[in-house]
């Protein structure tokens, strides 16, 4: 059987829909995962009582989460085709639509990412002075001034300080939800067999947390913190590899459309960039570098950290693009 033509469907810019979602959505998923990772570690190590030992993880890292989330939301809105109506997104909350509850999760998490560092603002200021990040101290000092002037609602921050343990717990849960959401957003689409995959949620969460640990490892100046993060990151990479192998095994065992979806990565057009660039240079190479570092070799930590961050972004670009190309074939 051969398809000859499709009247009014041979319109390049309309059909098939392979680039409805592009770079902004991939980056949105990446930034969401990164922020989730950063906040997850902050909440986790605070709850474990490591506030003093891991100052960057608990207090400074979250300082970056808010701008990261805002950038992500900006990209999301930028990608909308009916931008002026964006407020409609926040007129309802629909549990069955990941796009809806994800946007709400992002809003909730962004509150935490703002209040968390504000509640630590004095010690953050001290830390920044010690580290000589004078540009950033200007920001914190300004915030402190605002807080003293009651412009930033003082009582919210005081309450936050008072119930920090409980709030850390909530933040931990929400950062996990955010991380999983970045995968579920895609896996909710049955129409794209590659995405229609329950492993995507945990896989994106793991990858997001891994980028979070890379971020902390890169910017912290505390040797212990860095080594711990790099050890954690190594196990996250191992989990990611496990998920990836399972994902493809599951697809290969599935119906023809799932085999075709897996085929895009197993011999198809995404094979080289997925295995060579993402798995090779974004997972395995940093894993080896981190292992060497732990063995005592001197490796500039920025190298594996950047590899993981760039790898995480590339992973999402590949998944978004390949997913849209994996479709049910329209033949009678």
């Amino acid at each position, binding site marked *: 059987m051969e398809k000859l033509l499709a009247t009014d469907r041979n319109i390049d810019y309309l059909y098939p829909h392979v680039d409805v979602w592009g770079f902004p959505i991939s980056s949105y998923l990446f930034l969401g995962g990164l922020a989730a990772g950063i906040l997850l570690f902050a909440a986790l190590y605070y709850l474990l009582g490591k506030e003093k030992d891991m100052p960057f993880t608990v207090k400074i890292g979250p300082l970056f989460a808010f701008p990261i989330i805002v950038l992500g939301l900006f990209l999301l809105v930028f990608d909308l085709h009916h931008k002026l109506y964006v407020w409609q997104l926040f007129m309802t909350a629909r549990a069955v*639509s990941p796009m809806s509850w994800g946007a709400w999760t992002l809003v909730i998490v962004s509150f935490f990412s703002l209040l968390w560092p504000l509640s630590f603002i004095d010690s953050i200021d001290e830390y920044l002075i010690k580290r000589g990040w004078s540009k950033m101290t200007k920001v914190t000092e300004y915030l402190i001034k605002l807080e003293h002037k009651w412009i930033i609602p003082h009582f919210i921050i005081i309450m936050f300080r008072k119930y920090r343990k409980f709030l850390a717990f909530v933040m931990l849960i929400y950062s996990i939800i955010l991380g999983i959401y970045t995968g579920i957003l895609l896996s909710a689409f*049955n129409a794209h067999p590659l995405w229609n995959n329950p492993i995507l949620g945990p896989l994106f969460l793991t990858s997001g947390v891994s980028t979070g640990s890379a971020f902390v490892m890169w910017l912290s100046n505390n040797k212990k913190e860095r080594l711990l993060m790099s050890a954690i990151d190594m196990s996250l990479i191992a989990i990611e590899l496990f998920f990836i192998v399972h994902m493809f095994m599951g697809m290969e065992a599935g119906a023809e459309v799932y085999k075709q979806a897996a085929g895009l990565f197993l011999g198809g057009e995404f094979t080289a960039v997925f295995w060579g660039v993402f798995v090779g240079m974004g997972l395995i190479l940093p894993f080896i570098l981190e292992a060497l570092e732990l063995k005592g070799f001197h490796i500039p930590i920025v190298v594996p950290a950047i590899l993981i961050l760039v790898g995480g972004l590339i992973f999402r670009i590949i998944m978004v693009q390949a997913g849209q190309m994996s479709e049910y074939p329209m033949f009678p």
Partner: protein
Amino acid sequence: MRYAMAIDVNKCVGCGDCVVACQTENNVPLGYSRDWIMEFVKGDYPDLFLHFESQRCNHCEDTPCVRTCPTGASHVIEGGIVKVTHDECIGCGACIEACPYDARYFHPDGYVDKCTFCDHRVKDGLDPACVSVCPTECMYFGDLDDPESKISKLLKERENYTILPEAGTKPQIYYLK
């Protein structure tokens, strides 16, 4: 009430009148279309024949497009017709990704547009524009919940199929073999 469409693929000659009628009736912007004809060659040489399918939104029973819409702009109205409220749509594209049939597109004004089963005509008791103009009269529109309707009878009498039933959306455009 459950509106559906049945299309006799043996009568269809692929003239494309349904496409033009829809574009005119619904003011579809130039270069876009809500319905389209797929044209296939079937059989083995020398027994070849052409197979036409006039396709559009299947007004599925199980609607992934409605489920994934974050604002509720995509919704189902009386009779199972799937519609989009333009000023609730933010143009996120989730419904486009969710539809296995590529039945939706971004209108140049930003919102998502698609076949409405001509609900504005249907509520006055008329057939959708595509059905009403078909020169071979190969399309039937009606209520499946009414066992006496022409479409219910046809679907009972004749063998039929839907497109991509494996996508699991329970499409409501039937093709009579």
